[in-house]
């Protein structure tokens, strides 16, 4: 499935899309010399499936009323979302080198007012799911058939507001809301489960009346199947796709770094990383 063409009129595979998203992210990371590059590499497969399989949107009209909403709760993952938005044709590729610079439309932490295609301002963690609940309620009021996707992280499971929103979405039976949790196992202070143990996670959301899928977030076929299951589920309940991902995925020497929440990458390593990525292309 991952080698099949995606979106109408395209013959580019999801695997190729994921490669290009990773490549865009590495090029942006090189501009700053450091950053949330391990998260970006880890979530690229999920973003490829989101933007080239699941989401309904018009690249030339990011605020098209009929679009599915994609909320980035984890503001520091902006580097990954910009990479996907560039690949999706929502952002121009030539702005990539402005990432994190003065007057750029691509600030380090994602903000709705700065960037076309950025639905919300994330970054103060634990906001996204609650905002997504309000958007889902609003879409229902408008009798829209659009979905709200909210991408958040295992670290955000520490925030009480995430659970306020989770309980509310279940209680309000928001069947137009799809949560995506990136379980990459790493937070600012160390391993996520060492910071605060959130497992067992799937039963928690089930107990809050969500439809739950859990997959390897770097297995594109599995992610496609889970996204389809979430969208096509007929129960009157919100849906969540828990994605176990690997930080730094696709660049083994970055995957192996122990403290990789905010990666420092040496100047010569960026080209090395791009080269490794290129070698893995199409495999």
């Amino acid at each position, binding site marked *: 499935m991952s080698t099949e063409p995606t979106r109408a009129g395209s013959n580019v595979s999801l695997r190729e899309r994921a490669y290009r998203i990773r490549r865009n992210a590495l090029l942006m990371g090189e501009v700053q010399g450091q950053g949330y590059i391990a998260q970006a590499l880890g979530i690229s497969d999920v973003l490829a499936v989101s933007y080239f399989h699941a989401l309904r949107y018009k690249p030339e009209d990011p605020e098209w009323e009929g679009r599915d909403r994609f909320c980035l709760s984890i503001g520091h993952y902006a580097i990954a979302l910009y990479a996907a938005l560039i690949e999706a044709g929502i952002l121009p590729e030539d702005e990539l080198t402005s990432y994190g610079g003065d007057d750029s439309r691509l600030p380090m932490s994602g*903000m*709705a*007012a700065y960037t076309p295609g950025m*639905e*919300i*301002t994330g*970054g*103060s963690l*634990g*906001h996204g*799911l*609650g*905002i*997504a*609940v*309000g*958007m*889902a*309620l*609003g*879409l229902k*009021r*408008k009798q829209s058939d659009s979905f709200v996707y909210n991408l958040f992280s295992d670290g955000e499971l520490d925030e*009480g*507001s995430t659970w*306020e*929103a989770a*309980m*509310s979405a279940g*209680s*309000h039976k928001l069947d137009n809301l799809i949560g995506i949790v990136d379980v990459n196992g790493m937070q600012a202070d160390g391993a996520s489960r060492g910071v605060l143990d959130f497992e067992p996670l799937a039963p928690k959301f089930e107990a809050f009346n969500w439809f739950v899928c859990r997959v390897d977030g770097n297995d594109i076929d599995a992610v496609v199947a889970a996204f389809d299951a979430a969208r096509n589920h007929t129960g009157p309940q919100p849906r969540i796709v828990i994605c176990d991902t690997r930080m730094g995925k696709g660049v083994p020497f970055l995957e192996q770094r122990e403290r990789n929440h905010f990666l420092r990458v040496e100047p010569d390593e960026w080209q090395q990383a791009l080269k490794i990525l290129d070698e893995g292309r199409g495999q």
Partner: protein
Amino acid sequence: MRRSKYEKPAPRQGGGLKTSAMIASLAGPDQRTRAAPFGHALVELAKSRPDLVGLSADLAKYTDLHIFAQAHPDRFYQMGMAEQLLMSAAAGLAREGFTPIATTYAVFAARRAYDFICLAIAEESLNVKIACALPGLTTGYGPSHQATEDVAIFRGMPNMTIIDPCDAHEIEQVVPAMVAYQGPVYLRLLRGNVPLVLDEYGYTFEWGKAKTIRDGRDVLIISSGLMTMRALEVAQALGDDRIDVAVLHVPTIKPLDEATILAEARKDGRLVVVAENHTVIGGLGEAVAGLLMRNGVMPDRGFRQVGLPDEFLDAGALPTLHDRYGISTEAMARSIREWL
């Protein structure tokens, strides 16, 4: 200093006032009131504004939003006792083109949900109206419910408009005005049986405007919210002693009507007193003080503040507490006599 909890209080003569007696209303025994003016004004406005939706965090009944919820059950969202979610979801609804009215108590909005109001709503000037009961010292429940610093908190938030209405007459006019305004608003709500005062003065609310309710030669009281009602009572009481008191009502605390306040404060021969139902730190008093100082204005007979002390306040009956902390009519009149 609060008394030790191991010290038994002396029995009170006649039993004293009860905490619960004044939760529901600020009105004196013979005062004219109107029931739930906020809720009824919303119901009226909802007829012409299909975008209006209401949300509450398990306090619809105590913010008069239940009136709206009963009239328009399909336009009311119960968000549960979850203020962070209340504000985030309101932001989400505003993003989808609705005009959400989010209600809770002032303490919970100001303290518990601050980050969510700041980032999810104010940062992008989303069209959310936050209406909060129990602003300042309007309950005897103690610091858990007394929002003595709510204005200070919201004044520091860019894009946020702060409205502090005096009475039912004003609330009825504020509701359509704040919904007509595009952007976030924090409303210090008076609920239940709300006093009716300003109609007798021919007053009309105007967005962003301070208004002279009565003129006077000796003292200018600049006030907002329920303190304007008190200021008018003080003016009456001091008038009996031939002290002539002007009252300038400032319902829009942010942005401040600087031109009107400066023009009034520059008038000769007066003591300027700012009266607010709020701590003296960071509220209307310091806003006016800063304004006067930046413009080199020092009133002829000095500048004073009537407001709550920088303390966690006592629990008890509201009239007792208002008197204890200097914001009752009698206490304010006493202070002004001393200052003159």
